[in-house]
C-alpha cells in the first residue's frame, strides 16, 4: 500500500465533494473538504497538502483563481481540476499556472485513484 497523502477536495457541490472525499479516505488518504475557493485558500495557508482536486466553476472565487492564489504562497502545490463542462479558457489558465491535469465530471474514478497512487 502506498503512503497516505494529505488531499484537499474543493467543490461547491457538497455531495460531490463529500463522496470523493469518502472514496479517497477509503484508500487511507487524509482528506479535507473545502466548499468554496476562499476555504481552500485558507486551508492551504494553514497547512500544505500533497494533492488537491479542485472544481473549476464555482460561485465566488472559481477553482482556477483560487489555485493561482495558493500557488503564490505554495508554489509546489499539486492540483488536478475537475470540470463538468470544458471551460477551455480557464483550464488553459490553470495548466499554464502549473496544474497537473484535469478530469471531466463524472470522473473516471479508477484513474483518480491511479494518480493518487502515483503521487504517493
Amino acid at each position, binding site marked *: 500500500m502506498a503512503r497516505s497523502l494529505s488531499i484537499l477536495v474543493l467543490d461547491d457541490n457538497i455531495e*460531490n465533494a463529500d*463522496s470523493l472525499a469518502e472514496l479517497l479516505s477509503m484508500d487511507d488518504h487524509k482528506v479535507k473538504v473545502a466548499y468554496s475557493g476562499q476555504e481552500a485558500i485558507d486551508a492551504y495557508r494553514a497547512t500544505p497538502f500533497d494533492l488537491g482536486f479542485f472544481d473549476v466553476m464555482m460561485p465566488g472565487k472559481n477553482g482556477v483563481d483560487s489555485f493561482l492564489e495558493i500557488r503564490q504562497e505554495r508554489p509546489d502545490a499539486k492540483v488536478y481540476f475537475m470540470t463538468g463542462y470544458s471551460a477551455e479558457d480557464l483550464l488553459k489558465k490553470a495548466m499554464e499556472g502549473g496544474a497537473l491535469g484535469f478530469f471531466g465530471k463524472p470522473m473516471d474514478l479508477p484513474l483518480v485513484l491511479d494518480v493518487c497512487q502515483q503521487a504517493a
Partner: protein
Amino acid sequence: MTTQRKTPASRIKDTDVLLQILDLLPTSLFVKDENLNFVFSNEAHCKVIGSEAEKLLGLSDADFYPKEQAEKFLAADKSVLNSPEAREFLELATSTDGSTIYSLTRKARVVTSDGATYLIGSNTDVTEMKNNEIELEAKEARYRALAETVPVGIWHLHENGKTIYVNPFLLTLLGMTEGEFLATAPKDFLTAASEKGVMEMIGSTARFETDLMARGKVAARVLVVSSGWLNNAGVAGRSVMVTFVDISKVSSLQTVNDEITRLNAELSDKIKMLRATQEEMVKAGRMAQLGQLTATVAHELRNPLAAVRTSAFVLDRKIKGKGMGVEQQLQRIENGVVRCDDIISQLLDFARTRPVQRKLLDLDTWLAKVVEEEAAKLPAVVTIECMLGLDGLVAAIDPERMSRGLINLISNASEALVGKGDELHGDASFVPAINIESGRTVRGIEISVTDNGPGITAENLLRIKEPLFTTKSFGTGLGLSAVEKILEQHGGGLEIKSKPGEGARFTAWFPLIETLEEAA
C-alpha cells in the same frame, strides 16, 4: 431674147426671200462689218437690241448697251475677227426693258469673195437655263451649308471606296482632319462591318448601330443610316450617302440605366443576403443561447452525476466480497451515468459555439485507436473492420470532438445492426459488420462508416440530419446533428447514402489542414 423664168429654188436664193426667212427665226442673228458696225439684224435681234433694222445699220453695240457690256462685246468681236474659227460666249446683256438676259452668242468671221470681212453672230437666250443653274447653285450652297453645320456625320462614299464628301461633324466625331480621313480605309471606321464588308453593309443596310472607330479606338457609338446605293447622274458608278448620329450619350444613358438595373439586382441580392444573415444571426443567437443553456445544464447535471458515480463506486467498494448481490444494480447505476454523460456530450457538441481546439496528429493512428476502443464496447456479434488509407498523414483536428463524432457514427451503425443489445436482425446466417475506411479525395479527408444493416428509407434519409429526429426508442435525436456540427466546425460535412435493405454508408469529410498556423 429669151426670158429666163426664175425657178422656186433660185427664188429662195434670192436675197429678199432669204432675209424673210432669217426674220422668222427665233434665234437672233446679226452681221457686223470689220468696224463692228451692224450691217444686218434679223427681227429677233432687233427685239433684243430694241431697235428697228433700218435704224440699226451703221451703229455698234456701244450705241445700245451700257458701256461696260458694250466694251466686253466689242472685245469679244475683235478676238473673233482675228481668229479663223467660230467662238462661243456666254454674255450678260441688259435688255431694253431693263431686264438681264443671259445669252449664248456664237460668233464667226466671214470673208466674202470681194475681200470684205464681216462678223456674223447669233444669240440664244439662255436666261432661263442660267437662272436654273443659279438656283441649283444656291440650292447646292444651302445643302452644303446644312451638311457643314448639321450635328450629324455625313459621308458620301463612292462604290469604289473613294470618299466623295465628308462633313466636318463626322471629322470632329472621329477627331480627324479631312486628310487623315481620306487616308483611312472605310472598314477601319466601321469595325462592326469589317466581317461582312463595309460597302455591302452600308450599301444594303438601311440602319444599324455600331461603334465608330478612330485609330483603333472607339470614337463614338453611332446610329448609321444609309441611303442605300444611289445612281449618280453624270458620275460613273454608284455611291451611298451615309449619316452618323452620335448616340454615345444615349448609350451612356443606357449604360447608366444598365448600371442602375445591375445595382438594383445587387441590392436585392444584398437584401436577400442580409435577410439570410439576419436569420443566420438569429439562429446563431439562438445557438449561442442554446450553447449557454447547454453549458449550464451540463455543469449542473454533471456535478450530481459525478456524485452518483462516486457514491456508487464507494458503495461497490464497501460491499465488495460481502455477498450482497447488488453488483447488477450498481452496474445499472453506472450505465445510467454513462448514458446521461453521453447525452450531455451530444448536447454540448450540437450546441457548441466555441472554436475547435485543433491538434496535429497522425490521422490513421488516431482513427485506429478510437475504433479499437469503441469496438471493445460493441456487442460481440458485430464484426468491425478498419481500412486505413491515409498512410501517416498528419492533420490538425480537434481530436476530442472528432472522436466523439466518429464514436457516434460507429455506435449508430452498431445499433442499426443489432439494436442496443445483442438481438440480431434477420436470419442466423446474417453477419453484422461495420466497415471503416479512411482515404484522401479532392476535397480532403474522408472517413466512412458502412454497415450492412437494414438501411434507411428515402423518407427518413431526408430527415435524418434534423436535430431531434430519431427512429429509435432511445436517444436524443441529436447524434447525427452533433456529428454534422463537429464536421462543419472542421470545414467539412457528413454525407449519408443508403437504400432500404442495402445497409448505410456515412461519410465524414473535412479539408486537410496540415499545420496549426493554417488552421488559425
